[in-house]
């Protein structure tokens, strides 16, 4: 499944335009502690986090995560969006909380 398909099916708002919509989502990881993410997230994971500062882009780039999903429309810094576009990492926002986003991703078949 691609980032674009997930956006469409879950009604996520892409904050980085068309960037990275064809990246493949291989799994999902939820955590807001960056060192924990560094240790445990896998390449291709969609990462759900309420952290919104620029360093999340560094984490996603280094681990080759497929995208970042910000739940509950948490406010995101302009610099983070800019950096994400530069690095080609798609960031999307959701009205739902992290649990509901995860539930919806499971219903799309992720995590099987």
């Amino acid at each position, binding site marked *: 499944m691609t980032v674009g398909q997930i956006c469409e099916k879950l009604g996520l708002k892409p904050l980085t335009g068309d960037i990275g919509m064809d990246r493949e989502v291989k799994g999902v990881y939820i955590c*807001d*502690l*960056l*060192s*924990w993410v*560094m*240790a445990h997230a896998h*390449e291709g994971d969609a990462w759900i*986090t309420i*952290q919104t*500062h*620029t*360093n*999340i*882009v*560094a*984490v996603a*780039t*280094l*681990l*080759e995560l497929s995208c970042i999903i910000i739940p509950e429309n948490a406010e995101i810094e302009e*610099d983070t969006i800019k950096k994400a576009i530069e*690095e080609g990492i798609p960031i999307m926002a959701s009205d739902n909380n992290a649990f509901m986003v995860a539930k919806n991703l499971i219903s799309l078949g992720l995590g099987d």
Partner: protein
Amino acid sequence: MGTLSYEFSVEKDDFERAGEASSKIKKILMQLGMDSSIIRRVAIGAYEAEMNLVIHSLGGTIRIDIDPKSIVITAEDIGPGIEDIELAMKEGYSTATEKIREMGFGAGMGLPNMKKCSDVFEIESEVGKGTKIVMKMYLKDGD
């Protein structure tokens, strides 16, 4: 191939650029066509070392030396040093402030992560002088 070396300076409290040195290191390894599993280990080690320089040190450098047999990452700073290294190495131990924790740092996992992704991990520190961390990763055939 001989030894390729690169060095990056890392400023204290520079959250704006934090992660740039490790991203550059990762890109160098990708350009060299290295295997994704070794790139991942180097990226994790370099990132954790870089963030510790930004958050806990007065500033320092990250260096990478690549030869046909191994990759060595060296992080060195100018202080303040670590008083109890054994304690600092414990999973979950952190002196990060509330503000830093709100940003998602301070899980106390950085040093343990560095150790886990290295084949050889060395840390030396002197209070008032600084900290030096060396992470060595051996390359296998195919990396």
